[in-house]
């Protein structure tokens, strides 16, 4: 067994002229782990993936894979399989030839190649399609062929570059499970780049949230969602209300006309500007008693019906949409919430995150 991380990235930097796409990024990936690089376009996630693959060489920094320094190795001498958003299947070769493309160059006996191709196609659930050409397959099927091709040489590392972005929502949800299942079965260390938070939350063991060339947070999906390390993460992953507030005392802040208790360490001093973050689903509307701590009287200004829940805009004082709240259909029905109504809500202290500085428009 390997001791320590399987893949280790140390102070990786990538410069395009004056623009730094990666600013001294460091990261460890354990053997068998499924890691997602999540971030908006231009955050450097794809650049990082391509540096790991050796397709775009980093400006400085070190990459270790399986105890070997691969920083300066060309892609062809590294050990990885890769799947692209565009599938990049060879259009003039049929499915079997695509999957066996790397095997043929290994000069393996023909029968062995055929057996391996069959095995791989079975693995991705396409045993019947070996003779077809890529253009004859659906997008989802093509991506599974690409996956089989990437796994053909049993690489130590599987890289997925937005593999699901070109697919329909339904196929995407299905393939999400499929890839996850494959990963559990093969145990291959996997890195997936995505801009889709839902994909990252459902698939990853750990998420690496990136923004403007730096890593904002590394953590399990639950950690990233529950305890975002920065306002950026809170905003990018899920929906968050950002409130401009001022520290008035220990664990006490002032927001609008309200005094709110929240949990923060002694960092911010009284008088300092801070940002409160609370998720719409964390606003409580049931069993709130008037006069209790962290309660507020708000007015329903708009209700957006979203199927299993409603997103409700709440007006506070002069502000017509100071807060967004997600109320389940149950709550809406039970409390007969309707537009123009006045509600008493509470903002639970343990659900409020505090970030330094005034809120920025993200």
């Amino acid at each position, binding site marked *: 067994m390997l001791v320590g991380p399987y893949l280790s990235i140390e102070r990786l930097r990538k410069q395009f002229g004056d623009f730094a796409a990666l600013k001294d990024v460091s990261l460890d990936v354990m053997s068998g782990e499924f890691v997602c690089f999540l971030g908006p376009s231009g955050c450097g996630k794809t650049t990082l993936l391509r540096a790991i693959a050796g397709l775009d060489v980093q400006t400085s920094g070190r990459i270790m894979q399986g105890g070997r320094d691969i920083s300066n190795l060309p892609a062809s001498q590294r050990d990885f399989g*890769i799947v692209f958003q565009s599938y990049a299947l060879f259009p003039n070769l049929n499915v079997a030839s695509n999957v066996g493309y790397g095997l043929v160059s290994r000069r393996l006996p023909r029968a062995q190649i055929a057996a391996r191709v069959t095995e791989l196609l079975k693995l991705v659930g396409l045993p019947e399609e070996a003779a077809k050409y890529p253009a004859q397959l659906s997008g989802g099927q093509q991506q599974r062929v690409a996956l089989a091709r990437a796994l053909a040489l049993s690489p130590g590392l599987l890289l997925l570059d937005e593999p699901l972005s070109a697919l329909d929502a339904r196929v995407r949800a299905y393939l999400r499970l499929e890839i996850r299942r494959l990963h559990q079965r093969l145990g291959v260390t996997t890195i997936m780049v995505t801009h889709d938070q839902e994909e990252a939350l459902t698939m990853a063991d750990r998420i690496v949230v990136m923004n403007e060339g730096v890593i904002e947070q590394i953590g399990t999906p639950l950690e990233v969602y529950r305890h975002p390390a920065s306002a950026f993460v809170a905003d990018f992953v899920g929906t968050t209300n950002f409130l401009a507030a001022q520290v008035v005392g220990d664990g006490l802040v002032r927001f609008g006309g309200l005094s709110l208790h929240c949990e923060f360490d002694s960092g911010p001093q009284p008088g300092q500007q801070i940002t409160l973050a609370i998720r719409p689903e964390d606003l409580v509307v049931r069993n709130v008693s008037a006069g209790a701590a962290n309660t507020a009287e708000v007015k329903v200004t708009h209700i957006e019906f979203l199927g299993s829940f409603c997103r409700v805009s709440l007006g506070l004082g002069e502000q017509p949409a100071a807060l967004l709240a997600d109320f389940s259909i149950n709550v809406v029905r039970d409390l007969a919430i309707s537009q123009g109504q006045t509600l008493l809500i509470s903002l639970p202290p343990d659900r409020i995150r505090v970030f330094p500085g005034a809120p920025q428009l993200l």
Partner: protein
Amino acid sequence: MDRDDLLMRAGICLLIGWLLLTLILPLWWLLSKSFQNQNGEFIGLANYLRYFSTPSLFASVWNSLFIAVLTTAIVLPLAFVYAYALQRSCMRFKGLFQALALIPILAPSLLPAISLIYLFGNQGFLKDWMFGVSVYGPFGIVVSQVFYCFPHALMILLAALSLADSRLYEAADALGASKTRVFLTVTLPGAKYGLISAGFVIFTLVITDFGIAKVIGGRFNVLATDIFKQVIGQQNFEMGAVVGFVLLIPAVVAFAADRILQGRQVALLSARAVPLVPKPAARRDWALLVFCTLVGGMIFIVLAMAAWASLVTRWPYNLTLTLNNYAFGEFDSDGWAAYWHSVQLAAWTAIIGTAVVFVGAYLLEKTRAFAAGRVIAQFMAMLPMAVPGLVLGLAYIFFFNAKGNPFGFLYGTMAILVINSLTHFYTVSHLTASTALKQLDHEFEAVSASLKVSLLRTMTRVTLPVCLPAVLDISIYLFVNAMTTVSAVIFLYSTDTKLAAIAIVNMDEAGFTAPAAAMAMTIVATSASVKIAHVLLTRRLERRTQGWRRR
């Protein structure tokens, strides 16, 4: 750095070296020659001063510009309406009209000039129509140029009008725009860049063409014939070099302007566009049919006239048909050998050229890193488009004849003609290859690297097969152009390598117009057969190896 990377760098360096040797250095020699006297001493701008102060020489600049602008002004609207009829109407016989209009591309530029001489020349049977104006001169040149440039402009405009988003038209209709307004606000802007490009192409073709002015120009001097006169007639190479550079200026300006304007072009057609399918409109379709019949009819008459002239015993006294004019040995010392030289040249240019162009474009499109080399090579590959054939040919004389040039042995051989033709037609071939390569997924090379497969294998196993139609297009383009070109090779042929198109010039000069027409028809027939073979072969190959394209 792995093997593929080294190969790539070496390849790009080779490509740069090749273009340096076949394009940049010869042009440099030409430029320096224009600053020297006959003894090879540097005399600064003296040659240029003499050029611009000699009215008889300088007049050619205006003549050339006049002819070029007038031809452009005539061809552009004609070709646009013709292309519009083919792409945006429900006119009948579209296939026939398209084929007819594109035939002249297979002919040397000399052919329409010869036809016009038969129609309107001193013994032409429509001479009375000319009201005493001589066909030898600007009139003959412009009419011949119109015929010669029409298919080139048509091809660009056909492409520009080929695709349109029908939803733009539906939106315009829904907003109550009149037909004229829709045309002015939707159709025309969509074809704007095609029109600009076609305009520049016509302008450059006319200003650099040598054959037409030579055959039908009479005493009307243009830049292209001036070079020829200075170099061949007066053996004044230095003045030839000066005229060459003067000729280079409008061509380079037109080329640069076109590139800049094309750079502004944004894709009007997104992937989600709904292609426009023309709907029948009786009055428009009939009007366009009449127009195309007139234009197509004239093209047919010019072609038929040349064909007939080549078969007539002695114009205009004995009109019985004969094949005697095809016995070229009677009229020109080289006889049929000139024709076979041309076929040889065309075949070699097509074979070697396609390989060089495709590998070159592959290196530039499909590999990464080595940015400096890439930029230089890309620039060099675009340059030949701006260099007139005559100038390139002249530059070759200077460069390959220069004392101490280790490649001097090439002079006077078939090889130099092949190299010259390939360089002359490099840009269009390169663009065709680049476009085809750009359409492939950008990650094929990355996938290959991850699968430990060499670039070379992926190129032969995937890239080349997928690009096969483009490869065939390139080879046919090189073949036809090498077969028909006059300007690039007129300075470079030797007695052993005289070409068919040059035989036309020589025979015409010697007064053997009918055999000249016969040779022109032979070239057309050859190009046409090769083109037809190409179409059939492409279809077969597509059926056999491109099966994957069908769903």
